[in-house]
């Protein structure tokens, strides 16, 4: 019985090896992350333009890198967020922002999904945005933006500093 795992786990070793053959080149990973950052920031500016003028304003945009993965895989992802300022009930403001984005070609994906509070999620191409109210500190309507995928980084990469937010100019 003990031999069986040995025999068959050779297949595992092969599969795992194929899945992680070679550590990614750190320079390539840095370039890929920079491209992702550029794409997300550009998309956020586009969203801000779509929302602004519909009775809402977008301000205080920020982006940050997050460490992801563990064990056999490490990655970094870049996400952006901005504060949406408007008037009216919380649910109405969420809906107003989501409608503005729908008019710009975004598709609402959160219909039918339960959530404990006013909230919307939309997708366009390989971007996903979430619109919701902060639970901590001053109550603010925030939209976050994430691009599909992440950038694999070498196994010996250190985690990024947790507080690495940078302002994103919106104009």
């Amino acid at each position, binding site marked *: 019985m003990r031999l*069986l795992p040995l025999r068959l786990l050779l297949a595992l070793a092969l599969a795992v090896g194929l*899945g*992680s053959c070679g550590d990614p080149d750190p320079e390539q990973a840095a370039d890929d992350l920079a491209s992702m950052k550029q794409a997300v920031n550009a998309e956020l500016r586009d969203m801000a333009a779509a929302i602004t003028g519909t009775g809402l304003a977008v301000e205080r945009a*920020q982006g940050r890198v997050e460490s992801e993965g*563990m*064990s*056999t895989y490490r990655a970094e992802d870049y996400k952006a967020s901005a504060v949406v300022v408007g008037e009216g009930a919380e649910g109405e403001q969420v809906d107003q922002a989501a409608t503005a984005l729908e008019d710009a070609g975004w598709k609402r994906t959160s219909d039918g999904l339960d959530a404990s509070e006013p909230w919307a999620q939309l997708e366009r191409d390989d971007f996903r945005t979430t619109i919701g109210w902060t639970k*901590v*500190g001053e109550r603010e309507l925030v939209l976050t933006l994430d691009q599909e995928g992440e950038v694999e980084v070498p196994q010996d990469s250190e985690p990024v500093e947790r507080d690495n937010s940078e302002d994103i100019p919106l104009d």
Partner: protein
Amino acid sequence: MTVTIEIPASVPVQIKKPEGDAGGADGLATTIYAAAGRYEEFADRCRELQELGSWAGIAYQSYKEASGEASTEHSAMATTVRRVGRGVTAFADTLRDLLRDHEDLVERKRGLDDRRTALIADINAATEATDNEIAAFRERAVELRIDYSELVTADDDLQRRVRDNETLLRQVFQAADTLPEALSSDGGIPPMAESAMNRPGAPGSGATPEEVQRWWDSLTEAEREAVIAAYPERIGQGDGLPAGARDQANRVLLDDDLARLAAKDEDGTISPLERKMLANAGQARDALANADAYTDPLDPDLKPGGVLWLYDPAAYEGDGRVAVAVGDLDHATDVAVFTPGINTDMGDTTYYTDRMMNLYESTRYNGDGSSVATMFWLGYDAPHGPTDLATLSEGRAEEGGRNLADAIDGLRASRPDDPAHLTAVGHSYGSTTTSYATHGDTSDVDEVVLIGSPGAGPADHASDLGPGADHVYVGRDSRDFVAVLGDEGWVGKLGIGLGTDPSSEDFDANRFEAEDVDRSWHRNTGDAHSSYLDQDTESLYNIGRIVDGHGDDINTAEQSYDPWWGPPQDPEWDRDPTANQPGRSDTSPDR
């Protein structure tokens, strides 16, 4: 009518500031560690040069005896000098605490003096005071007197601890200030520490964690500081001791390694093992710095802090053993112990400590307000990777399971009157290790969480694990290649995995949603196997709820199954994963 209201005096007149410079003491310790390194180098060199090949005869015998003696003496001297250095490090750590306490007391006194001044002003302003007003003044005066009295007691306590700390430092030096003492096996050990360590129940004596806890309880504060300074290896690994004491002792060892090995590295005399140890020490230092700087997601004024619960950078030929916690292990209501899987050694400490911050954050962010501590525990020799033959068997998991069970017993014993809600979380091979640790009735965890599991080792059913089936939880991303290796159904998988697949109907644990939006269309060992603790994922959300004591509130997923007529089925395969959805995958503040 004249009314007398006794205003208490502002006491103590002065809160004396502890003398000394903690930074200066650290600098002294660094110099002493470097000196110890020199003695070690000399001892090593003498030993290496004993065999000189062709030289033989009486002169060679004399040389050999002399160099052997020199090696032994310098080695003993190095040990003593290191002990003295550790004593100085411990003095500096305690001095820092004392200076902080002094500032707190000064602040308290300032507050009391303000209240006193206000009371006097109010009394002076009241020319026609009513009986009720007079009674209120008297009540304020009485409360003030009580508070001043408590301040005096606290100040007395502070000054006593200052004296104890200075006495301990003096004793450390006195125990090594003659050549015979410096060369003896107990050089640099203060008598107070030696006597405490010789009492029954001391760690490292074969005592149970419960006996160790009672031993610690029996020590005076001065004795505790003394044993931390003189026996940091035994205190730092003492199961049953408070995490705070272990942390203090391990930080002493860490400072020693960082200074001594860096000096050897600079000299070019560092060995390959020592180079690994130095890198491991650097990881522990950086992980602690990150944990110490981490801020609670709900309270910007709260820094839960880091704990170096286990530190052994030389273990397993330099792979190291380490445990770093985020949060207060001695008092947190909810405690999680996370065991990693293959490919993990002490070089990964900063990364996994960062994952522990994610888990802390998720637990607090979606939690009931209770305090939390999350610990990365690498107290076993995790297989090196998929091509390491140890990955293919359960041997390391079994041995690691025993170590993890001991660690859990130690955590439990250290808090006899205030037990935490304790969750053991294991990932990948670490889930098999966790199964071994929690298998059977003797396990003392409240919840077990297995994620990305290649098999539950000795457990065929969730009820085989200590807390019972209702408190065993499983997270499996349907694309996770490793997590589909365990046996499911009647046919099984011919032993390819490490036991029963815990996400299967056969195992019957509580499976929670754990799909990741970047999981890919095919099975893989990348994102799908490694994203369980990423922010804003379904998995991290559910694990946070379990750690917080709300396992009945997870978002459940249907168990996988393996029908006799076809391949294994995973009902989660076709479900669209969510990210950042409130109540499902939102684990962190967006700003």
